[in-house]
């Protein structure tokens, strides 16, 4: 059975992470992971809610060492956590700051405060004791969850070998800059952040950055504290905000972008303003990253080594390379040749708001699960205006005679990521279902247009 090194760093004193400008060595990381692993005996699953990227990485490494599978949900909404606990009653929760405290207490789920444990190089016994742990390639490293159309989060298994294969191929796409220090605006728990802001530096010999900057001024400050090569790993939402605020960044060496299609004009602006090539990545939670392009060089995407697309009239499936099972892609793809394709947009039920993906069926299911809601449906408005950073929100109708909008929104907030909360949520006496009980999107959009004509302020 093939075993792969947990990290690519060969020297104990190699920098593997930065926290507010202070370096953390590979030796400290391995020691911390080993120490944390001793707190995980018997746990089969570890729900990793760490917001600090270094704590997150230590948590994932510790789980690998302790033969424990990391659970990475896309949102920390209480209902999702309850669902995971039902799936894995023996789960332990790794946190570093109090996220989801209430629901974890209710569930009596053991909580390990990673930030409070003394995870230091103590006991390492000098550089001679340094060794990189080996992990079996077929080890189940993580289950990452997406929103299924049945209304329950769907797990996707990530084996260590497949992750390493994918991420090392990605490192080669960074054109000799893979060993840089990476500042990321994305969460570590999402597939993109997991691959590009955590696994990539661990497997390429680079360094991750513990903090997750939010405002443009914070992004600048984080980058400022790092040596070159500097890599910014972000999304169209944050890149747009950087351009709009006109903020200066220290010299960058690469920009990585994913989660939603990046307009070529924005890619040009970023490259020009920050003087660094921009690599756009395409993938999914199901497959991980499967293609990239230098957006300013052209529209075509370049598939990951070994990955092939097989397209029928309805869908394209990806398979090969690190993608072990044939997996349908949610977007409309047009192969150009065996290694390249064009991306045309989303397939019907699936939505992408601010880079986060879900399905209308899943969201509608959550709405209908709320006590007091007799009927409800999410939809995409026909002419929804984009907000300042280019976001278009979903809308929803609900039939709930005993409830009002704020109560329904509060209940939804317990179940779904806040970015999908409907704007607006409109209450009706009944929904226009057709004779087979279906509620086609175009019917909902027409109804919305009709209401907007009569009362535009509902939709402002």
């Amino acid at each position: 059975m093939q075993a792969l090194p947990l990290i690519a760093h060969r020297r104990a004193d190699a920098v593997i992470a930065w926290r507010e400008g202070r370096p953390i060595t590979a030796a400290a990381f391995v020691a911390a992971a080993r120490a944390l692993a001793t707190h995980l005996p018997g746990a089969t699953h570890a729900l990793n809610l760490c917001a600090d990227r270094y704590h997150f990485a230590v948590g994932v490494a510790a789980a690998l060492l302790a033969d424990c599978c990391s659970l990475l949900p896309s949102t920390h909404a209480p209902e999702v956590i309850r669902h995971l606990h039902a799936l894995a009653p023996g789960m332990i929760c790794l946190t570093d700051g109090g996220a989801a405290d209430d629901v974890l207490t209710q569930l009596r789920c053991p909580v390990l405060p990673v930030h409070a444990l003394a995870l230091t190089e103590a006991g390492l016994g000098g550089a001679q004791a340094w060794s990189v742990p080996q992990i079996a390639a077929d080890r189940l490293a993580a289950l990452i969850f997406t929103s299924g159309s049945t209304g329950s989060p769907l797990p996707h298994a990530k084996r260590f070998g497949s992750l390493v294969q994918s991420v090392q191929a990605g490192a080669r796409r960074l054109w000799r800059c893979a060993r840089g220090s990476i500042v990321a605006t994305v969460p570590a728990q999402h597939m993109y952040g997991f691959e590009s802001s955590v696994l990539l530096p661990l497997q390429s010999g680079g360094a991750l950055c513990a903090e997750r900057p939010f405002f443009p001024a914070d992004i600048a400050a984080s980058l400022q504290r790092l040596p070159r090569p500097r890599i910014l790993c972000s999304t169209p939402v944050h890149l747009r905000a950087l351009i709009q605020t006109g903020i200066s960044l220290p010299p960058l060496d690469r920009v990585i972008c994913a989660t939603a299609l990046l307009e070529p004009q924005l890619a040009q602006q970023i490259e020009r303003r920050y003087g660094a090539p921009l690599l756009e990545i395409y993938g999914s939670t199901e497959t991980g990253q499967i293609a990239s392009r230098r957006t300013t060089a052209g529209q075509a995407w370049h598939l990951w080594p070994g990955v092939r697309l097989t397209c029928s009239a309805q869908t394209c499936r990806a398979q090969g390379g690190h993608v072990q099972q044939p997996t349908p892609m949610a977007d409309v793809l047009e192969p150009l040749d065996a290694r390249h394709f064009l991306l045309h947009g989303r397939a019907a039920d699936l939505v992408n708001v601010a880079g986060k993906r879900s399905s209308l069926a899943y969201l509608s299911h959550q709405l209908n699960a709320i006590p007091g809601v007799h009927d409800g449906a999410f939809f995409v408005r026909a002419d929804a205006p984009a907000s300042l950073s280019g976001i278009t929100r979903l809308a929803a109708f609900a039939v709930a005679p005993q409830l009002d909008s704020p109560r329904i929104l509060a209940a939804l907030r317990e179940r779904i990521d806040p970015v999908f909360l409907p704007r607006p949520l409109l209450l009706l006496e009944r929904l226009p279902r057709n004779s087979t009980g279906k509620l086609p999107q175009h019917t909902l959009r027409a109804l919305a247009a009709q209401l907007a004509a009569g009362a535009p302020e509902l939709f402002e």
Partner: protein
Amino acid sequence: MPEQALPPQQAPPHTDVPALEQQIAQLIVQGLNLPMTAAQIDPEAPLYGAGLGLDSIDILEIALIASKQYGIQLRADDQENDQIFRSLRHFARYVAEQRTK
């Protein structure tokens, strides 16, 4: 003697905070596409979470408004952020103090 222009570091002129509140409410409703009118925003309601129902993307967009309109760069580690985003009224006061435009 010709009048000297005030150097930009001087304190901004006295700002009418209620008028600023209204201006900000309008910018937020338009920029974020909120399904309400500016007049419907309770100036004392919490901006984030259950009050006005704003999420982190909205907060980022409010930061864009602060930057473009008022020349303020928000920082996440600002000790005062709990205060700044506590309500429209708090935010308007912060803008009145910090604006450079």
